[in-house]
């Protein structure tokens, strides 16, 4: 019965041996397991060349994909003061500093103006790598300023969301940023300026329940997780597993919650087409208003006289 005692030698884990391939040269697609050459992956905007899996990309990368060339960044110096002096298992200040060092950003959003296929646009791009892209006072303030800047300069707005929601470490201050940004969007809306919301993986919580769902047009990347409550929270509530694909872009499209699903490689052109829909008429109107006001100013004494009721 010797074969009973035979203990099979465990298969050696490959991580035991030091790899001779430099770190980051090859990337394995988490969806189709294809081994991708990193340069090819970058060239295809971090979309798997085999199965079109969309890798997460950073905020700067995103701006590079959207803008024609250089852009002007605003408010990059804004930094949270840790208003609640929040400490959980480690101080929030430490988490902030670690994220600042890791991303080179001061918080989870970059706001900039630049041209998208020739159309000047105010863009906010969120950075998931900064404390899960969470929205605290700085994200709230920067996005609000980006919208107000658009109203002042009559520009359209594009916000690319990638966020776990409101930032717990700034408590209700974070919550109120939902109201603050939505208030600015109300003014943008009444100023008849277009707002395109681009949803990327993941967009959840307070970000979804405020500006992310307020776009005149809402465009999502394929298979992005988009929802209010996180899947785990829902599973705890209903005590059962969620069906495959629940809260993914395709599900939202089917339920009528978003307008379009667009592959990242087509995103810029799709955004530009919607911007163009919102732009020419607007410019014509603005031009008409300006022309009318100049005419009115020039002709003021005359028109006042003319406005007087005709004598019987």
């Amino acid at each position: 019965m010797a074969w009973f005692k035979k203990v099979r030698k465990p298969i050696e884990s490959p991580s035991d041996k030091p790899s001779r391939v430099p770190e980051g040269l090859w990337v394995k697609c988490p969806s189709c397991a294809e081994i991708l050459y990193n340069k090819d992956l970058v060239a295809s905007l971090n979309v798997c060349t085999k199965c079109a899996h969309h890798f997460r990309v950073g905020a700067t990368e995103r701006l590079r994909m959207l803008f024609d060339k250089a852009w002007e960044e605003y408010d990059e110096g804004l930094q949270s003061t840790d208003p609640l002096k929040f400490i959980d298992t480690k101080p929030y200040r430490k988490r902030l500093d670690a994220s600042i060092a890791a991303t080179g950003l001061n918080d989870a959003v970059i706001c900039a103006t630049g041209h998208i296929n020739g159309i000047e646009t105010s863009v906010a791009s969120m950075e998931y790598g900064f404390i899960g892209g969470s929205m605290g006072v700085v994200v709230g303030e920067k996005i609000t300023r980006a919208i107000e800047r658009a109203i002042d300069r009559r520009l359209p707005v594009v916000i690319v969301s990638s966020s776990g929601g409101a930032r717990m470490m700034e408590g209700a201050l974070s919550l109120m940023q939902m109201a603050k940004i939505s208030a600015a969007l109300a003014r943008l809306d009444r100023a008849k300026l277009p707002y395109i919301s681009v949803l990327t993986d993941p967009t959840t919580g307070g970000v979804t329940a405020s500006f992310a769902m307020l776009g005149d047009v809402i465009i999502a990347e394929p298979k992005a997780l988009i929802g209010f409550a996180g899947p785990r929270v829902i599973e705890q509530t209903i005590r059962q597993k969620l069906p495959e694909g629940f809260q993914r872009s395709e599900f939202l499209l089917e339920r009528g919650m978003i307008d379009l699903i667009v592959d990242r490689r087509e995103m810029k052109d799709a955004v530009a087409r919607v911007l163009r829909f919102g732009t020419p008429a607007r410019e014509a109107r603005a031009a008409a208003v300006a022309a009318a006001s100049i005419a009115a100013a020039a002709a003021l004494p005359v028109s006042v006289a003319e406005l007087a009721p005709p004598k019987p």
Partner: protein
Amino acid sequence: MPELLEFEEPVGVLLKEIEALSMLPKTPERERSIESLRRRADEIRGEIYATLTPWQRVLVARHPNRPNTLDYVERLFTNFDELHGDRRFADDHAIVTGIAEYKGQAVAIVGHQKGRDTKQKIFRNFGYARPEGYRKALRVLQFAQKFSRPVVVFIDTPAAYPGMESEERGVAEAIAVNLREMMMIEVPIVVIVCGEGGSGGALGIAIGDRVLMQEFSVYSVIPPEGCAAILWRDANRKVEAADALKITATDMLALGLIDGIIPEPSGGAHNDYDAATALVDQALSQALADMAPLTGEERLEARYMKFRRMGEEGTAFTDTAAAPEA
């Protein structure tokens, strides 16, 4: 005997004693000792409530006997007609809306409703509103705007309902649209947080010219248990989370996120409905009087600026790029 919270134990001991004494035949001497015990109980209760921790306030805010929207509606308003349904899908029982009169003035009312006994709680979905609730609320707000009637909002919800149908029908969109549209409703909106202000589920109907919190209510970006589960990886650290999140009325006022605090009777609103109602009444009539002389446009501007200033430069954040130059 009223339902007591764990930290009210010393009061409970006295109340039990009073109960035991009142079972016995009445004598003037017993009457006197009952009276003195009652005074002692009130005193101790007052002391306990003067120094509640944030977590204890969460428990008070969630107290099953705490007066809720319909309790206040019944005591403060006359001729209340509840209005139902969002005209799209259903009537959400976790948010109550309606029209009524307040001191002879027509007003609209919107408020969360949690339910008290098990049957009611299930009917009200424990105060967890679905998308329909937010859409119904907006419908009633727009109705009020059409006829220039002020709106009174009561907030008392653990959160928006985190269930499948909520997601399918777009609870995030429903809340988001309310945030945007409530900024543009020209009539006065007075918001009173009377229990739990549970994150987006609360905020979705809590945009107003005056946002007031009752003394022992709480307002939070996430329930302390949820925050503890995520950041501490242990839901039992809720006491610390409640402390860290700055959820009390005093904290919220200090952070500039609410406009005022409505005091509560000693021992909390659930201990004396009439006294609690009188204090809400006073605050509400003051708020409505403050709002009345303004034009719609002025109100909207002030409302915008109020929320615009939440999280200000210098306190909540600084501009590191704008370092003073030599």
